[in-house]
């Protein structure tokens, strides 16, 4: 029996991708079972689901909180945790916007794109640029790698897929991106052949919608 966590989701990013990033950043090997059809979903009741340490965890946040705590990516005390939670929750909101884009019909895409990039560049990125500027350290919280850094990198890369020059006005985020990408387990995750999932392709969208709706 494998002691590795096993992820249950469809073979794509969706809500499971932040979990994959977190496990990868922690250097934890994991296995995956992919949903192919609606019947797989109803059997499981709810996804994302992760089998880990004898539990079947659901609820993205519950899973991420558990992994982050277990692998020391959640700060050293309550106040650091509070900061990390604030940053992560903000990034979660932005992630929802970015994630939705791929699934919208063509006539809704343009307006959504404008809104999500506006939020990214005027609401979220300025906050993190300022955090880095104010303390001048390498990591967002407590001068050590945490889930906030991992999540921010993930979001930056997703935003760049939509708009390659999105970080043009954010020099500190640019160096942050380079720095965090170079951390060995993250660098490995960014290479081809890792379990990182690609952006959903337009032709796959109907299949995914069928599984979930």
């Amino acid at each position: 029996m494998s002691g590795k966590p096993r992820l249950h989701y469809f073979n794509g990013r969706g809500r499971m991708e932040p979990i994959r990033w977190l496990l990868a950043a922690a250097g934890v090997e994991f296995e995956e079972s992919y949903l192919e059809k609606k019947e797989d979903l109803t059997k499981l009741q709810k996804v994302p689901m992760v089998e880990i340490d004898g539990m079947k965890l659901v609820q993205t946040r519950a899973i991420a909180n558990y992994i982050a705590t277990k692998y020391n990516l959640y700060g050293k005390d309550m106040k650091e945790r509070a900061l990390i939670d604030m940053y992560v929750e903000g990034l979660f909101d932005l992630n929802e916007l970015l994630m939705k884009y791929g699934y919208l019909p063509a006539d809704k895409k343009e307006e959504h794109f404008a809104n999500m990039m506006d939020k990214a560049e005027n609401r979220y990125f300025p906050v993190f640029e300022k955090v880095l500027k104010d303390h001048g350290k390498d990591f967002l919280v407590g001068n050590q790698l945490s889930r906030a850094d991992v999540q921010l990198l993930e979001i930056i890369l997703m935003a760049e897929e939509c708009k390659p020059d999105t970080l043009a006005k954010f020099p500190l985020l640019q160096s942050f991106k380079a720095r965090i990408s170079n951390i060995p387990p993250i660098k490995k995750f960014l290479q081809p052949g890792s379990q990182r999932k690609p952006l959903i392709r337009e032709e796959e969208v109907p299949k995914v919608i069928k599984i979930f709706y």
Partner: protein
Amino acid sequence: MSTKPKLYYFDGRGKMESIRWLLAAAGVEFEEEFLETRDQYEKLLQGGSLLFQQVPMVEIDGMKMVQTRAILSYIAAKYNLYGKDLKERALIDMYVGGTDDLMGFILMFPFLSAEDKEKQRALIIQKATSRYFPVYEQVLKDHGQDFLVGNNFSWADVHLLEAILMVEEKKSDVLSGFPQLQAFKARISSIPAIKKFLEPGSQRKPVPDDKYVETVRRVLCMYYDVKAN
């Protein structure tokens, strides 16, 4: 100088209500500043108090915390309502995630058109009785204990009670198929701090009305049509 937490939000439930419940359950007194005008909101924004330009915001322990989930987690941990170890914490997170999803269907209810309200009411009841309540009913049945996790009062219990009462406001007999939840509701409601919060004159907010909707729209300049999820 007061060291009580201070809540910044509208004079109504919205996303702040779960925070009010948790502070009350922890027996923590708190102050509130209600947003009535756009000016107040802009002042908060310009003062840099709202990290992502949003409320809820809670001043607590020298921090200006935003993001409902972050605030709730902090309060739960501080006041020992978050389980005794990592595994209990995971269970609490899972259960709270579920009740959060359920209350999410109710959150935008006041903003919907009359027609959409009817549909949404039916959806709320359907989700509550077929997806969410059965899970908590089973949890209580399986371990036979008074509280959801670790035989100890936790955030999960407070959140579930809040969710039950909110759904009952949409259909008063919604717990009729759930004997464990009925007993749970009675039990948790009679915990002194909670009982006090349920009495008139507490800081618990009433069912949102048109005045609340108007205030939110005015303060946030949120004049678009809200659609059900």
